[in-house]
């Protein structure tokens, strides 16, 4: 008896475990692409796309009416902010206010790392060096005279950019200028970084919002960047109809590379700025889905019977 039991024990010693995992019997769903699932999917998706497309299309079309706060953009074309050599030419450590970044900028900034005298440039790199420096002033003709329209330069950059990614070096004796001591201004700049907005200590140096907007490089060679917002006083609910005059201080050369500059006034909607593309694609694709759904239905009805007969 004992021998028999030990024999049985031995017989089972190498027997694999009987679990759902080892025996490949894990419970599973086996969804099938059948007419019952695919066709409703197509019709629903098509209808949803059509609905979204219509919504997008109309909200994009309404943007023209200048209702609500107006944004003032500048647009550059044929301008390659997304070029790799351009895009890497910055030092985020320096821009975050790090002292060592100030004294010895990253090698990526080269050839805008140091000035001919060997002083480190702050902010270094090609992006900072090519800061857009045209200025715009808007006048509204009211009662026969042009009154300047108040342009708000606050909150044009991302909060995370102006509060975390960019910060000025620690003040030396309460002076930003002293903090920048020992650095050179970018070659193309008329003045040093700490003088970008002398009137507002919260908008000068690295945390100047125009600078931050510029430093957020564009994805495509044609891009627009937010310059100012019109949201104060009489203009808080849009630009009223009337005559306006835009005064442009032309500093920034673009003709050499066949670039263009534009100034754009636009309002925004729930889906952002005006862009008809999404709406149109949704509409087209929604229609295509429904059309395909019908084709599939027809094919299915025709061939399903045949296949069943084959099987039988």
């Amino acid at each position, binding site marked *: 008896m004992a021998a028999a039991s030990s024999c049985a024990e*031995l*017989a089972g*010693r*190498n*027997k*694999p475990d009987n679990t759902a995992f*080892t*025996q490949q019997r*894990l419970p*599973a*769903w*086996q969804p*099938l*692409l059948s007419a019952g699932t*695919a066709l409703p999917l*197509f019709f629903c*998706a098509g209808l949803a*796309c059509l609905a979204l497309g219509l919504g*997008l299309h109309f909200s994009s079309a309404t943007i023209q009416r200048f209702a609500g*706060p107006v*944004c003032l953009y500048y*647009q550059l074309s044929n*301008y*390659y902010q*997304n*070029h*790799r*050599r*351009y895009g890497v030419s910055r030092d*985020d450590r320096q*821009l975050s206010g790090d002292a060592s*970044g100030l004294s010895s900028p*990253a*090698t990526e900034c080269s*050839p805008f790392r140091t000035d001919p005298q060997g002083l480190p440039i702050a902010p270094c790199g090609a992006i900072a060096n090519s800061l857009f420096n045209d200025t715009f002033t808007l006048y509204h003709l009211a009662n026969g005279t042009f009154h300047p329209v108040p342009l708000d330069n606050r909150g044009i950059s991302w*909060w995370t950019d102006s509060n*975390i*990614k960019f910060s000025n070096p620690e003040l030396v004796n309460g002076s930003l200028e002293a903090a920048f001591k020992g650095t050179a201004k970018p070659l193309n700049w008329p003045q040093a970084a700490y003088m970008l907005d002398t009137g507002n200590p919260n908008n000068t140096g690295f945390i100047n919002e125009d600078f931050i907007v510029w430093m*957020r490089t*564009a*994805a*495509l*060679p044609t891009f*627009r960047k*937010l310059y100012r*917002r019109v949201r104060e006083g009489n203009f808080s609910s849009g630009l009223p109809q009337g005559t306006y005059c835009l005064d442009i201080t032309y500093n920034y*050369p673009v003709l*050499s*590379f066949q670039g263009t500059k534009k100034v754009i006034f636009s309002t*925004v909607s729930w*889906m*952002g*700025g005006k*862009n008809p593309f*999404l709406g149109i694609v949704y509409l087209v*694709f929604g229609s295509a889905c429904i059309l395909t759904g019908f084709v599939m239905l027809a094919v*299915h009805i025709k*061939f399903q019977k045949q*296949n069943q007969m084959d*099987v039988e």
Partner: protein
Amino acid sequence: MGCVNNRIKTSKYNILTFLPVNLFEQFQRVANAYFLFLLILQLIPEISSLSWFTTIVPLMVVFTITAVKDATDDCVSICSKLPLQSLQQSILQNEKWMNVKPGDVIKLENNTFVAADLLLLSSSEPHGLCYIETAELDGETNLKVRQALPVTSELGPDIRRLAEFDGVVVCEPPNNKLDKFTGVLFWKDNRYSLNNEKVLLRGCVLRNTDWCFGMVIFAGPDTKLMQNSGRTKFKRTSIDRLMNTLALWIFGFLVCMGIILAIGNSIWEHQVGAHFRIYLFWNEVVNSSVFSGFLTFWSYIIILNSVVPISLYVSVEVIRLGHSYFINWDRKMYCPQKDTPAEVRTTTLNEELGQIEYIFSDKTGTITQNIMTFNKCSINGKTYGKSVFINVLPKTVPVDFSFNPLADRKFQFYDHSLIESIKLGDAMVHEFFRLLSLCHTVMSEEKNAGELIYQVQSPDEGALVTAARNFGFIFKSRTPETITVEEMGKLVTYQLLAILDFNNIRKRMSVIVQTPDGQIKLYCKGADTILFERLHPSNEELMSLTSDHLEEFAGEGLRTLALAYKNLTEEHFKEWFKILQEANTSVDSRNDYLAAAYEEIEKDMMLLGATAIEDKLQEGVTETIASLSLANIKIWVLTGDKQETAMNIGYSCHMLTDTMNEIFIVASHTGMEVREELREYFALQALALEGDLENEFVEVACMCKTVICCRVTPLQKAQVVELVKKHRKAVTLAIGDGANDISMIKSAHIGIGISGEEGMQAVLASDYSFAQFRYLKRLLLVHGRWSYFRMCKFLCYFFYKNFAFTLVHFWFGFFCGFSAQTVYDQWFITLFNIVYASLPVLAMGLFDQDVNEQNSMDYAKLYEPGQLNLLFNKRKFFICIAHGLYTSFALFFIPYGAFYNTAGEDGKHIADYQSFAVTVATSLVIVVSVQIALDTSYWTAINRFFILGSIAVYFAILFTMHSDGIFVIFPNHFPFVGNARNSLSQISVWLVILLTTVVSVMPVITFQFLKEDLNPTLTDQVWLNLIMKQKPLQNYMRRVYRTNSRRSAYAFSHQEGFGELITSGKNIHISQYNYFILLKSGAFLKNC
């Protein structure tokens, strides 16, 4: 000098050498070296389009996984080396097999394997005789005799004298000829010539011999067996080879893209960049547009190299390893009798199991159990015994042999009428069994009273004599002149006058005996075709009746012998005996004279009946072969055994019947022709392997559904496999259990060893091992099919995914001045292939099932896509590439259109580079996740977890990397701070992601749906069928038909020469030795 010991080294590493050796090996792989080269490229700042970590992190992960896998593989091979048999050695010395060296004298005991090629010195049997079974070597089932030199056999079991044995052997160098040996022994100033008869080869099993001593001549790799086993080749699957080709193509494609973009860069720098210099100066190194183009080429190679990702090879390995474990764990391939589970010994071949077109099988021990049982008989025109095909019902009681104390317990017979006839004293029945108990060359041994042991040299004879024994005609003992039989409880001693021995031409053997009452009788058994020609004319009627029965037996695949007797007068016998003696003493052409003398007396015999012996097949062989041939797999049997026995097995496992059946139905005469051809090729085959006939042989053989090659040597088995591999370009599988199958196992794409028996040699050389032939069906139709299916799906998806991921950079190149700017964040590029998109596809590669195991087995036709290579081939590859291309197009251009000159909800940026990167990356992760969800057909909890988990992990990592905290610590490495938060809070970004996903996925669903409707695969039909809950598809469930063909089922695994041994009395025991001591001697060999 140059002597080799018996050890065969298998493991590669030890603890100290592991790291350097493994790293060195890994770098030798072309792919890894290529990635190292890329890594070096990235260290050049002007070229580096990606940070160094984007390559090094995946490379480290890959190296670690590969190293762990190699280490476990090596551990397994170390472990498998341990259970070698140990031998007793020297006076009180145990030795392991691997320590045996040429010159050692070792002792072997009954039923043990011969460990090395030995010169037989002495044995327990008289005259230094020794019996061996060579099934492991050549597949033949009968015993063979070896005899020691008289001078050495005198040494007997005397350890002291054996220890002093100092003979010198000069012999041929190691070679692979199993049937030849030439050498000379110099001992005590004499020379003795040695031949094959004095040598025991490694792989044989000692039988019927209590012990023997031998001196080792060849050991380890020098033994004839190992010389025959061919070289171990590194096996790769056809998918591996295809993958390498595709990798080269992709590499070419990569270079093309690089060149296009580099040229674009040169032109751009020249036309556009030149005017843009005020903002984008040349730096010190890059200062001309041509040089910039050159550098850009390398930069793009780095960026775009993810089309052949590092993780591909390692993922494939991981999937294969997983499949291997599933095979190891399969309880349905576990044999409880032998306590052996299936084992995968080479883990890199699994998907090839789903592509097998040819199976080469050994016969003895693989298809058959090598057990013969007396199954039926026909006596005087009446058949006894139940059909082997009517399964023994529980209520059928086997014949009770308890009346017979000497009956063999294992013998079972299911027809009670036979025992009734015996008890009633039917004279013909008695004569029938008397013949069986007298006409043979079996030796008996009665160890204790009532315990009778037969030493048989062929299992057929054993079965016949055992049958006679159970039916009351017990062969008790023999001397050279007498045979003693207990007939129905009464001892009768017959005078043995002559044994007319068996040989392959005569196909019969006879004995002439004199009964105690003086009657002289000739008893003969042999092939029906031969015997029927020698019958007395009065037997006409009985003959036709018996031949009907023989046909019936043949139809069932039984091995038949016809039995006849003849009464002789004393004068007639004396006259003939004179002729015999003259023939015996003649010097030249003695054999011819003997044959003529035998012919003279074996005529005008009276037919008694016929026996039918079942060569027991392994369990489930017939069903397995039937299913596999339904799956369009061609099965060839390669055996060293005789034509008759091999063909017989062909019929009994329906391999031949089935083939004939199909041809016979069309037109009977072509059937004959095909059969003739087949026959012809049995004969031709040896020739065919050498000369120009090669091609013709393969042509004809491949037209046949079944091919049986007999009398092939181990090396020829490998040659047959090589031939098919070469001419057919098909995937081959070889299965065998013995040492003689090693060469074939090694040369086939897949080698399978039958494990669980004593001999492990085939298993050690094999890629897979299991205990029973029938598991082959499950291995191929379930595991192989799934492996192939999963691997193909995995590869399709993997290439798709990487193209979709990578080609976005290509499109972007046209909009960023071809500057090798990446679309994605560097960290995303680093992690995409190893974190975000690896686990779901791995889970699919490991667990996916299109149909369950039962359907895989039921619908054998489902196996065909693998053989036709339908699921992953160049065409499929291009479809995947096109799919990837389309997805990358949608991934880039939809965000492009949506972000063109637009702004966010609050009027701020969303069209900046970083937001664009996040949008495209998020779209990509979602699109590939949806795609894997569509591709997965078997959603286990693991799949669900991995797919949802991957998306969750993506967002978790995204928000972490874009968080304030990590930026404060490493400002230069995580410049995307705040990006996820800002971009992903925009509705329009989500609308873009949604649109991209829908546009990428919908056309795929459309194609799948239309394909299922317009051109359904069998899998689709099986599903359709399951949904409609119908009966199984009839046309895929063909039955196996059995037909009777007019043929002789004669088969007898006997060898010439035993008759002479018996009449000379050489093998009759004189005394019993009882020594079990081994020794080592100072004898040495000269040949090494």
